[in-house]
């Protein structure tokens, strides 16, 4: 229920501002059941922050168990009750529940809803030049389905049999059989219900994003003039629309198996002294269905972050993004390939090894467009004039994680190497760096960059720097040592390593990781303070604080419903005209016609001037909508 309270707070904050474009309506329609994309974005953001905090706290609890296995955790008893045993230890099954919920929350509720939900909603209409999303109503529904899903998932933490505990991948038969673990009872049912609602929310959002980008671009905003953020959000939404329904199907069949006695995933099971009647199913089928979403999901969380950084790195390097078309091309390639690599999660699950070799080939190909992106980022930094805003630092951090985690993917994508590394800490290190931390940094970078547009005030820079350095170093200290632990063969999801002679070492590294995790979590409170304090008391933002080219900075400092008070600006150029030779300033916003910048135009751009006059009436249709 904390989320609801936060919403009200947030509502008050926005209520304090002036709106030169106020829509008719009361408090409820304006801030709670709002159809304004900017308010919905903030709702997603605040919910995402709530979930991120919860997910982070869960991880620190199980890190305590891993880093300090002998620690007496009696002091957690007031919060966790029966999950702390009489001896002051974490319950073994609750440990698995913690891991499961941490994964679910972070992947879906933070990095999918919190990231895409916030920035796709906020930036798409503002950057393509639209008054709002194609359907404000569906957009509102998208948030409230997410909210409902959040409530269901959150409530599963408080039931006596515990939340889902079979890992965030919920492989059956473990997740299908309540007799196999108590978390597979009511907890799993709630998980499935929550995810079904979540998928509806994602689809409603995704359809809106795609429709808006295709149909509501302002005059002159061709696809080749779209900021890379929008390209990334567009392709993310496409991936989501194509892959989430498959997860829905997987979940539905699992619901049938659990509750209606079907055998899609179950066969030949003898458990608790009883042979089950199920016959003919295949647990591998579930894995195929799950990873058909599960792998694209990685790109659903990563692409928006890459889009956000492309924008921020270009703006703060005061330099056009290098290879715009190559960047778009690599996004497209990644989007396409993301659908044909899913079974690299299944090399050693008993899948036919021939399939394994096909998926290995396809998986390693995906490294090529990823490499192109990295090189283009580097080329953008080269000979730039770089301003280190907190957003820029987080973007550089993201690229660093993207390199580190991307390269370890080349090991894991290679089936023969994966035999040893699969389901060890090496995998944990890999995906936490490349997907978890990189996307998380994209989200933070986005918040630091667009906070002035969201709330009309600036975040405090110094707190931002402290937050960045603690988090950046902290995350590396948490996840880099895990590579070594994984190379030594330590399996993931282990409550303790005392049972094996082979896994006796690395108590020192595990302790270091836990301490680093605690510090990293603590550093987030600096951000939280900065965030909520600045909403009310931050320095008032100028119209275009980062001297950026994209359209959102042409709106008033506090844009009302409809975004632009008058006509929607027209777009004449791509969004990356930074430091153009001959130009007066080191940036030329997209809405400046070439006829105004004769001094810096390239020859082919002078040709375009002739077309500029012809557009005056074109946008009138959109205006009437407001």
């Amino acid at each position: 229920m904390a989320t609801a309270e936060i919403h009200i707070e947030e509502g008050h904050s926005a209520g304090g501002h002036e709106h030169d474009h106020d829509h008719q309506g009361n408090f409820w329609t304006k801030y709670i059941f709002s159809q304004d994309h900017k308010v919905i974005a903030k709702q997603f953001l605040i919910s995402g922050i709530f979930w991120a905090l919860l997910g982070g706290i869960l991880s620190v609890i199980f890190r305590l168990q891993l880093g300090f296995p002998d620690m007496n955790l009696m002091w957690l008893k007031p919060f966790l009750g029966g999950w702390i045993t009489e001896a002051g230890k974490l319950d073994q099954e609750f440990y698995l529940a913690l891991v499961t919920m941490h994964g679910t929350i972070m992947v879906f509720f933070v990095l999918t809803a919190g990231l895409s939900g916030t920035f796709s909603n906020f930036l798409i209409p503002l950057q393509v030049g639209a008054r709002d999303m194609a359907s404000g109503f569906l957009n509102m529904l998208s948030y409230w389905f997410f909210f409902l899903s959040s409530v269901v998932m959150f409530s599963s933490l408080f039931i006596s049999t515990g939340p889902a505990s079979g890992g965030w991948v919920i492989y059956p038969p473990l997740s299908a059989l309540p007799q196999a673990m108590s978390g597979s009872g009511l907890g799993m049912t709630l998980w499935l219900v929550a995810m079904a609602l979540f998928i509806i929310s994602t689809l409603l959002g995704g359809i809106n994003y795609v429709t808006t980008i295709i149909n509501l671009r302002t005059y002159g905003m061709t696809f080749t003039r779209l900021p890379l953020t929008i390209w990334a959000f567009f392709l993310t939404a496409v991936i989501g629309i194509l892959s989430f329904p498959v997860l829905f199907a997987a979940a539905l069949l699992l619901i049938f198996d659990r509750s209606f006695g079907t055998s899609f995933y179950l066969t030949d099971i003898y458990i608790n002294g009883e042979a089950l009647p199920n016959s003919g199913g295949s647990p591998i089928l579930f894995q195929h269905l799950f990873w058909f979403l599960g792998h694209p999901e990685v790109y659903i969380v990563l692409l928006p972050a890459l889009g956000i950084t492309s924008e921020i790195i270009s703006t703060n390097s005061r330099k056009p993004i290098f290879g715009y078309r190559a960047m778009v091309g690599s996004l497209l390639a990644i989007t396409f390939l993301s659908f044909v690599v899913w079974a690299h999660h299944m090399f050693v699950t008993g899948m036919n090894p021939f399939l394994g070799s096909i998926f290995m080939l396809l998986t390693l190909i995906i490294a090529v467009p990823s490499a192109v992106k990295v090189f283009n980022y580097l080329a953008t930094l080269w000979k730039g004039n770089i301003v280190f805003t907190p957003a820029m630092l987080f973007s550089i951090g993201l690229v660093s994680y993207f390199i580190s985690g991307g390269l370890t993917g080349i090991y894991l994508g290679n089936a023969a190497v994966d035999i040893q590394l699969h389901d060890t800490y090496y995998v944990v290190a890999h995906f936490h760096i490349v997907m978890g931390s990189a996307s998380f940094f994209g989200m933070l970078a986005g918040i630091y960059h667009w906070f002035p547009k969201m709330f009309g005030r600036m975040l405090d820079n110094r707190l931002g720097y402290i937050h960045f350095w603690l988090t950046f170093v902290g995350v590396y200290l948490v996840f880099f040592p895990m590579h070594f632990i994984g190379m030594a063969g330590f399996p993931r999801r282990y409550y303790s390593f005392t049972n094996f002679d082979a896994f006796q070492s690395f108590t020192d590294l595990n302790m270091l990781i836990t301490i680093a995790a605690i510090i990293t979590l603590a550093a987030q409170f600096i951000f939280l303070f900065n965030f909520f304090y600045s909403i009310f008391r931050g320095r008032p933002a100028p119209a275009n604080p980062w001297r950026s080219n994209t359209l959102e900075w042409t709106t008033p400092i506090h844009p009302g419903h409809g975004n632009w008070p008058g006509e929607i600006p027209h777009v004449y150029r791509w969004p990356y005209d930074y430091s153009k030779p001959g130009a007066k300033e080191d940036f030329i916003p997209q809405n400046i016609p070439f006829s105004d910048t004769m001094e810096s135009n390239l020859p082919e751009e002078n040709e375009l001037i002739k077309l500029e006059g012809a557009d005056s009436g074109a946008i009138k249709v959109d205006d009437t909508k407001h």
Partner: protein
Amino acid sequence: MKVIVIAGIVLIVVILFLIFRIATLVGILKGGEKRDGQSNQINALLLLIFIIVSGSVLLWYAYTKYDEYTLPVASEHGVITDNLFWVTTLITGFVFIITQALLFYFPFKYQYKEGRKAFFYPDNNMIEMLWTIIPAIALAILIFYGLTVWNDITDEAPQEAERIEILGHQFAWKLRYSGRDNLLGKHDYRLIMAENPVGVDFTDKNAFDDFSAGQMYVPKGRPVELRIRARDVLHSVFAPHFRLKMDAVPGMVTSFWFVPTKTTAEMRVETGNVNFNYEIACTEICGYGHFGMRMIVIVVEPKEFDQWKASQETLIQREPGLLKYVSEDLKELARIKSGLTDIQDKESESVSVAGSNK
């Protein structure tokens, strides 16, 4: 005590907040931040320091702790996959160092300076092609190498391979050796009961000489094929020293074959640990006891293995009552094949009757 701790925390928070307020006010007095201000220089420098310090720590750790994070390898294919691992490390390590170094050096070198203009350089197709093709070639090498290795490893086990069934259940492993005929008898999960924990089908004559064991004995230098099963939920057989991993899936038999190259005794000498044992662990989440599914593997010289194998009691010898599941016309064969023939005919008859009365 608690009150003091809470009061202390509150005090620290208040002090931090005051410092923040004062710093903010001082900042306002000094005027707004410039883009080439002090903080810009500090951050640029910190980025450079970060990459130098963290890079050195990483190299130092990777170099000095090599023995700690690499497990000695004890299988033929393991040597090859380890090699592939290090080849990959060579290629990715090179890329890693270059890209990370540039990523942190460029921001330092090209930090904001008033009056300087960034180099307007939107694209270059030549360069773009170059850094698409070069990674593609490097990856093609890795793919080709990897595919060859993978195909060899996952190829059918040699005919003479020692076949061992390993079945995972919550929360332990059960072993079944294929006996003298080197063929495992059929199985059916509906036959599982206390005296037949892996559900062996004793109507199949290949099952008569099957035997179970508490520890996995394997011969050095001979191929061994693990036939992997699960009884309840997914498990995964992971033998880290043999670079071996394969999931155990209810309803299907998966397999993985390998050739052990070092006996347990040899490994004890190599590691200097007199208590060294090869182990199998579970690497697929399977419930609260997931972290305790340990099975010891003992690699011995082939001769010793043959002696050990010959000395093992078959399933039927251990539990003659199982004979009741054998059809009448095969009972005689079952007695002979399972080794019950050593016992006098009359005795075995009575034992079997007693067994079936149980």
